[in-house]
C-alpha cells in the first residue's frame, strides 16, 4: 500500500492512462497536471491549462489516448496528444450550470457529462463537420447529476443524481453505432429511455425505510453489466440486479457517507468516502443481501507502553477518556475524505490493484492480495 502525497490541496479528480504510468489529476484549480511515474518518484510532465473554472471531471481513454475534462466553466475539452503537447478541442455542451462528472464510453466513440443543469450531455464526434456534437438527456432528472458509469454494451448509462435517485438511461446514438441487443435491463433502448429508477416511486427499497434518502454520490456497473451499485448520502449502499429490479438490496452502514464505489469482482465492491478508509462490501446474489465485508486499511501498530497516573488524569482532562491510544490523528492512510476510486489492474471482474485519491492531496494504491493477507477474515469472493 503506497501512499503518495501529491499536493496539499485536495485532488478534485484523477484518471490513469492505459499502462498506468501516467496520471492526470486536478489540484483543485483550473488546470490538469499530468505526472509520470519514474520508479517510485512522480514527475510532472504536462500542465493542461484551458479551463476557466475548477476541473471537476477527468477521464483518460485507454485505447485512443484522449483525455476529456469538464469543469465548472460549463465546458468540456477533448485533449489529444500531438507530438509532445496536448492540444484541446472545445466541446459545446449547451449547459447553463457547471459540469460535474465525465466518462468515456467503453468503445470511446462518445462520452457523457453530468451537470448541475439537471441533464446529461452525450457527446459524439461528427465526421462531416469535424466537431463534437452533444445530445441531452433531460427527463426525468430533477437535480444535479453527480456520477456516471457506462454499461459494457456502450449504450446504457447509469447516473446518480441529487434528486435521491439512481437511474439507468439509454444513450444510444444511431450515428455512431448499431442497435444494441437486449440486456437484462431491457430490450427497447431509444435514446433517453429510462430503463431503471431507484427510489420510492420506482421500486421499493430493501432493508430499512430509508429508500430515496440521500444524494447518490457514486454509481458503478459490475463487469458483466448485470449489477448496478450505488452509494448515497444517507450512509447506504445499494445493489440492483438487472431483470430482478423489483428487489433492491441495500445496506444502511454505520460509517459516514460513502462518496465513490467500484466493483472489484462480480460479488464484491469497494467503497470509500468521508471516513477516509476504503470499505469492502459483499453481495450475495442468491439471498439478495449486501453485507459489510471489512475495513480495508493498514492496521496501526499500537505501542504497548505503560501509562503513568499523571498521564491518565491529563487524558481525562483533555479528551474525557483515560485510554492509552494517543489518537492525535486519524489511523487511516488517507487523512481526509476519499473522493474517487479507480481500478488499476484486473478490471472490475478480478481487480488486483485499485487507487484512491482524496481531499488530503494524496493518492494510495491498494493491492488486493496483500490486503487479503494482512487483514484476517477478509474474504473477497
Amino acid at each position, binding site marked *: 500500500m503506497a501512499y503518495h502525497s501529491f499536493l496539499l490541496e485536495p485532488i478534485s479528480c484523477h484518471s490513469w492512462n492505459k499502462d498506468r504510468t501516467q496520471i492526470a489529476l486536478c489540484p483543485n484549480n483550473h488546470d490538469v497536471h499530468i505526472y509520470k511515474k519514474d520508479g517510485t518518484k512522480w514527475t510532472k510532465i504536462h500542465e493542461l491549462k484551458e479551463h476557466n473554472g475548477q476541473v471537476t471531471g477527468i477521464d483518460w481513454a485507454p485505447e485512443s489516448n484522449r483525455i476529456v475534462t469538464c469543469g465548472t466553466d460549463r465546458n468540456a475539452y477533448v485533449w489529444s496528444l500531438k507530438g509532445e503537447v496536448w492540444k484541446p478541442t472545445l466541446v459545446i455542451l449547451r449547459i447553463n450550470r457547471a459540469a460535474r462528472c465525465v466518462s468515456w464510453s467503453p468503445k470511446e466513440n462518445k462520452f457523457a457529462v453530468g451537470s448541475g443543469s*439537471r441533464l446529461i450531455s452525450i457527446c459524439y464526434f461528427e465526421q462531416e463537420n469535424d466537431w463534437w456534437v452533444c445530445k441531452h438527456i433531460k427527463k426525468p432528472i*430533477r*437535480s444535479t447529476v453527480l456520477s456516471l458509469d457506462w454499461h459494457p454494451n456502450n449504450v446504457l448509462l447509469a447516473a446518480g443524481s441529487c*434528486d*435521491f435517485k439512481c437511474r439507468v438511461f439509454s444513450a444510444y446514438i444511431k450515428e455512431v453505432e448499431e442497435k444494441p441487443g437486449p440486456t437484462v435491463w431491457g430490450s427497447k433502448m431509444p435514446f433517453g429511455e429510462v430503463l431503471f429508477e431507484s427510489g*420510492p*416511486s420506482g421500486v421499493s427499497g430493501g*432493508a*430499512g*425505510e*430509508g429508500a*430515496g*434518502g*440521500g444524494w447518490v454520490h457514486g454509481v458503478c456497473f459490475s463487469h458483466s453489466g448485470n449489477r448496478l451499485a450505488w452509494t448515497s*448520502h*444517507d*450512509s*447506504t449502499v445499494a445493489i440492483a440486479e438487472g431483470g430482478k429490479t423489483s428487489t433492491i438490496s441495500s445496506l*444502511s*452502514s*454505520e*460509517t*459516514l*457517507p460513502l462518496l465513490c464505489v467500484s466493483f472489484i469482482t462480480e460479488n464484491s465492491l469497494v467503497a470509500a468516502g468521508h*471516513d477516509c478508509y476504503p470499505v469492502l462490501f459483499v453481495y450475495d446474489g442468491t439471498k439478495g443481501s449486501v453485507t459489510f465485508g471489512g475495513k480495508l486499511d493498514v492496521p496501526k501498530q499500537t505501542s504497548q507502553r505503560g501509562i503513568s497516573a499523571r498521564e491518565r488524569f491529563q487524558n481525562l482532562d483533555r479528551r474525557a477518556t483515560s485510554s492509552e491510544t494517543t489518537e492525535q490523528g486519524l489511523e487511516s492512510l488517507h487523512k481526509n475524505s476519499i473522493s474517487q476510486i479507480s481500478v488499476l489492474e484486473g478490471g472490475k471482474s478480478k481487480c488486483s490493484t485499485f487507487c484512491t485519491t482524496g481531499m488530503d492531496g494524496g493518492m494510495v494504491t491498494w493491492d488486493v492480495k496483500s490486503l487479503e493477507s494482512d487483514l484476517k477474515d477478509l474474504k473477497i469472493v
Partner: protein
Amino acid sequence: MAKNTLSSRFRKLDIDEFDENKFVDDHDEPVDNQGPDGAEIDNLIRQGDMMTAFHIALRNPPVNTKNPAIKERALAIVLRVLTSFKSSDIEPAVKSLDRSGVDLLMKYIYRGFEKPSDNSSAILLQWHEKAFAVGGLGSIVRVLTARKTV
C-alpha cells in the same frame, strides 16, 4: 436612481415559488401511520412493562403525514416512554431493535433534544450513547438526511 430601488417590498417575495422547474416532492403515500396508541402505552408503563411499551411506542411512526399535531402527539408518547426507563434497562432495549428500529429511535432522540425539559436531556443522552454504539455515525447521518421526518 430609479424609484423602484428605494422600495424593499420585493424582498418579501419568495422567488423560488415562481420557478417553473422547482423541485416538488412526491409525497403521495397513504396516510396510515397515525403514531402509537397513548392509552395502551400508559397502561403498560403503569404495569411496569417497559420493554413492550418501548416496542409499541416505536411502531407506526407518523413519517408519512404532514400534520404536525400527529407528529407532536407521537413524539410526546415516545418521550414519555424513554424518560421512564431506568438507566440499566436502556442497553437491552436498544439491543432488541433491528437496524431500522435504531434509525427510528435516533430520529426520536434528536427530536427530543430539540425541546429539552427538566430531566429529559440527561436520559436522552444516555439513550443516544447506547443507540450510537449500535447504529454508529451512519444512523445519525440518516437522521440528518431523512426526508420523512418523524
